[in-house]
């Protein structure tokens, strides 16, 4: 038997003078359950509010249609690129529903459905991916930060905003969305550490969809689960089935209220799967098998919820049809909005680099203006 294996001998006095070496928080409550929380198909499901389940269903149907329509728009060249959240709709919708009007959402490029579910118009939510501008909606009006492309860089922003709101005495929770790959970035670490130290009202939702483009989780992390990272920051880790809309909604809502109540930040890992390729530009057959995809098709969050609702007799054909109809309406709006050519003003490139354009930028804007005038004459 070695010293490492054996329990520490009875210490003569603790080696933990309280002053410098800080809090000795109990790790137990911070650790996630070994299995992702599952509600649909368990006794817990009976406790759920039927209307909430129907609401989740309607939003899932909308979300699925949104993903399909956006993908179609890429084929028609109306969107430059689209990272679909097909298969992750339960995560996207729960993210929007868990927040109050006054809370803030910090999405990544894959989270436009969450942005739309929060009330942003699709054409604005997709502006970055359409290519006419970097960003579409008014972040302060919707309390939704711009889509973050540099991975995990939005996480510290969420911490800072939540911290600032608390300093102002406002009741605001910030929810940051990160992918499994994003958890490897230094910014993810620094954000969670700041959140723990500042005890900021922030929730980190990691949508673990199994891949960072082509890189499977096994090459991304050796952790028991990504939720186990929480304890290293003194924050709570939660593990949930990301394809179980009811579980997602419960866990995320509670995580947000946990943060809101001042009990500290929460890291939620949602185990889910990206059913489409990374983006329309990606070829997923290079790195995963049809069998694997099929296995997850069988766990489609929409199908799982619809099955539950039907088996529990909580939904009828009329409601299903109504949801489908609403989805077609959304798709129609999207087609209409994206068919209109976006207005482009080349000179706007100089307008918002600074509050006031520098003398240098004014010179450069004048140069471009002259070129455009010449072009116009040439026509």
């Amino acid at each position, binding site marked *: 038997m070695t010293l490492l294996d054996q329990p520490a001998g009875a210490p003569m006095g603790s080696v933990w003078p309280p002053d410098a070496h800080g809090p000795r928080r109990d790790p137990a409550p911070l650790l996630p359950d070994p299995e992702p929380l599952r509600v649909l198909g368990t006794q817990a499901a009976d406790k759920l509010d039927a209307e909430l389940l129907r609401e989740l269903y309607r939003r899932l149907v909308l979300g699925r249609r949104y993903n399909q329509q956006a993908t179609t728009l890429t084929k028609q060249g109306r969107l430059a690129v689209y990272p679909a959240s097909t298969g992750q709709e339960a995560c996207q919708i729960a993210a929007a529903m868990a927040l109050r009007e006054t809370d803030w959402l910090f999405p990544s490029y894959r989270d436009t459905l969450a942005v739309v579910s929060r009330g942003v118009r699709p054409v604005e939510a997709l502006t970055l991916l359409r290519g006419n*501008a*970097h*960003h579409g909606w*008014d*972040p*302060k009006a919707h309390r939704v*930060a*711009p889509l973050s492309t*540099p991975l995990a*860089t939005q*996480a*510290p*922003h*969420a*911490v*800072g*905003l*939540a*911290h*600032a*709101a608390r*300093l*102002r005495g406002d009741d605001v929770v*910030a929810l940051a969305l990160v992918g499994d790959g994003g958890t490897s970035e*230094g*910014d993810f*670490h*620094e*954000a969670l*550490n*700041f959140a723990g*130290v500042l005890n900021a009202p922030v929730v980190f939702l990691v949508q673990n969809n199994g891949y960072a483009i082509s890189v499977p989780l096994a090459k991304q992390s050796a952790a028991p689960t990504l939720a186990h990272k929480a304890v290293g920051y003194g924050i709570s880790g939660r593990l949930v089935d990301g394809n179980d809309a009811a579980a997602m909604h419960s866990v995320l809502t509670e995580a947000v209220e946990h943060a809101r109540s001042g009990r500290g930040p929460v890291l939620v890992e949602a185990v889910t799967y990206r059913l489409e390729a990374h983006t329309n530009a990606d070829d997923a057959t290079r790195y995963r098998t049809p069998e694997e995809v099929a296995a997850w098709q069988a766990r489609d969050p929409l199908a799982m919820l619809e099955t539950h609702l039907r088996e529990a007799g909580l939904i009828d054909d009329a409601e299903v049809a109504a949801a489908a109809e609403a989805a077609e309406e959304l798709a129609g709006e999207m087609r209409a909005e994206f068919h209109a050519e976006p207005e482009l003003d080349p000179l*706007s490139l100089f*307008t*918002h*680099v*600074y*509050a006031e354009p*520098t*003398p*240098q930028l004014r010179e450069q804007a004048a140069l471009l203006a002259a070129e455009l005038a010449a072009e116009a004459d040439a026509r």
Partner: protein
Amino acid sequence: MSTATLAQALNTALGDALREDPDVHVLGEDVGTLGGVFRITDGLAAEFGSQRCLDTPLAEAGILGTAVGMAMYGLRPVVEMQFDAFAYPAFEQLVSHVAKMRNRTAGKLPLPITIRVPYGGGIGGVEHHSDSSEAYYAHTPGLHVVTPATVADGYGLLRAAIASDDPVVFLEPKRLYWSKDEFTPAPVEPIGRAVVRRTGSSATLLTYGPSLPVCLEAAEAAKAEGWDLTVVDLRSLVPFDDETVCAAVRATGRAVVVHEASGFGGVGAEIAARVTERCFHHLAAPVLRVTGFDIPYPPPMLERHHLPGVDRILDAVALLQWEQ
């Protein structure tokens, strides 16, 4: 009117800003209890509380990223990076978010963040404690880049930086922290103007930050050689004051740019290039540069050979083709 060091003037500026605007928050490593390793934030936590002057965990990207979120909510964060080279971990947050957020959101999310960076050498620091990193920032659209060379500008420019609705990289010449001068907190004027510190007729020295005193000393020494030099203190690298600079160069027809940073791809190259573009036919000689060498910053016992000194500046002035 009283005398103060640059460090004290900066400290006063931070105190006044915290006092006048409740949205101003200072954050960084050791800025609270300790008052910063250079004591620039000395006493601020005591007066304004540990939240207004926050000791953060040790992570620069986290500090700047947190400041971005605070600014998104309407605060005015003033971030301290402990040393020039220790701002590099925050480079992605700075370039991809701080510099771009206003533009990306068409003005909807301005980030009024001041990023204080003690920079430059001459203090006998070990490696990574004496970098001149201004060129990285000056080449990044969306950032203002300013650097004071006098006690008065230490106060005035820092107040202006904090008052600015744009992100400002505020570069503090470490080796001038202890330089003393008369000073009264002056009214804040906007960023972007250079100032002529000395007017001469022979040639113009264009410089900023830690090299200003060296250039003024060189100008004094130049008298003995029969040269009467103009010395321009740029103060703001972005925006750049072409008007003041070009006027000063045209007046003498000869110019030397002086800075500590490595020459290749340094700010001096931009200055030489744009001055030449604008003043070509007024120039009797090419604009020359006296800069640090293109080497990693030297160890303390050798740094004097790297730093532009009076002799090296005068040697450059001597090359300005006086024979014509």
